[in-house]
């Protein structure tokens, strides 16, 4: 894997980018699971 160089990608940039897409997705999945569990009870 390509590693971050001094002038390359920083770790915080990676976290920011993945958080930008990961948080909304996790929220949506959590909503769906919560509904699914509630409905099966």
């Amino acid at each position: 894997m390509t590693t971050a160089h001094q002038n390359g990608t920083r770790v915080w940039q990676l976290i920011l980018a993945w958080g930008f897409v990961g948080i909304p997705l996790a929220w949506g999945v959590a909503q769906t699971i919560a509904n699914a569990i509630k409905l099966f009870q």
Partner: protein
Amino acid sequence: MDSTVQTDSVGAFGFLARSRTIAKPGFNRWMVPPAALCVHLCIGQAYAFSVFNLPMTKLVGIGQSAPDDWNLPALGWIFSIAIFVLGFSAAIFGRWVEEGGPRRAMFTAALCWAGGFLISAIGVYVHNIWVVYVGYGLVGGCGLGIGYISPVSTLIKWFPDRPGMATGMAIMGFGGGAFIASPLSVWLMSKFSTSTHIGVAETFLAMGAIYLVFMMVGAFLVRVPAPGWKPEGYTEPVQASKLITKSDVYVYDSPRTPQFWLIWAVLCINVTAGIGVLGQASAMSQEMFPGRVSAVAAAGFVGLMSLFNMAGRFFWASTSDYIGRKNTYLIFMVLGFVMYCAVPYTGSIGSVPLFVLCFLVIISMYGGGFATVPAYLKDMFGTRYVGAIHGLLITAWSMAGIFGPVLVNYIREYNIAHGVPKAQAYNVTMYIMAGLLFVGFFCNLLIKAVNSRFHMQPQDEGGALSTAAAAGAERAAQLTGKTA
């Protein structure tokens, strides 16, 4: 390898040019999947469009439908047009996407997708459904098609060691987009609605704005690898697999190969089998287990299926990197055949858990089929035009979108009309789906390496090939005279 045909934009839109997206040394390739997800999570909203259907039947009457309100069949066309345009825009614009680079494609997709919402908002405001058809269906559908294929070849180039996993991540986003869009739409409509007004138009405007920002972030994050770039420590296998080519096939040469149509058939069959039950899962579970599966439990079952649809995209595409694309589809066909044959049995013994298990496996393979196919195309046709070839192949999805629901709905109605109990009305359909997968098994089995006469020659590289004739009269004669 990446000596791409330069069709770079100039002037104010120069930042969209492929040459401006070439990654500098030190760029981490793990920045690219989030860029792809920015696009796919947005366009995946299409799967959640049905949340607008009921509110849009009460735009005039508010509390209940008025005679001037739109009806559900008319509203159903919005999604159908969008999916139809998705397939054909991906096919038509595939080469343009491939040659212009991912940023220009993502930027265009963002404008189309957000523009589609804006036009649809106007359509809802003036209460003219044709404006919504043009907005969401036509303009938005172009955004769907261009956006869907925009990151495919870029991801494959960044992850030559794990192409299945890379494209699986992006296409998983398309499956996951509905998870965000569905609750977001409901929440926005609740905020914009009053006792005298349903806030669909405002919700469309808000979602268009949100998606525009989100997709633009993806367009600016995305980078293509520098020519000759390889991951650190990665060496291409010396002894290449027979089913993984190192050569490239020109986009408009690919439909001349039997491999293209065999993969087309495999994808079409896999999607037909999945899409038919996906749309009917709620009704099917309640009718096969009357009194045991309530409408509420069925809705939870549909939610679980959507989760497995999304997870299957990542799981199966990643698995294909280890076991091979052909073997992955063999599993889809064989396991799918067993599962479809088992569904009537689960109904006869009254086992809800087994029924649920069968469908969760089936739907994971439905998603897996979508996610694994870009890597399959890369193995067959090389990386150069894989995104554009993927665009052509997506027409299989459009066809399956017609076949699947028709098979399930019409056979069920035919059975019920001929006195078959509702609990058994789906059995014939399940066996037909199993039969289709049996055919798909042989289509997949027939897939061999593409004949080398279809491979692009060194002189083709960098030149704007308009047709196969550019490769030379001799080769053109071969193409028209023989098949692989």
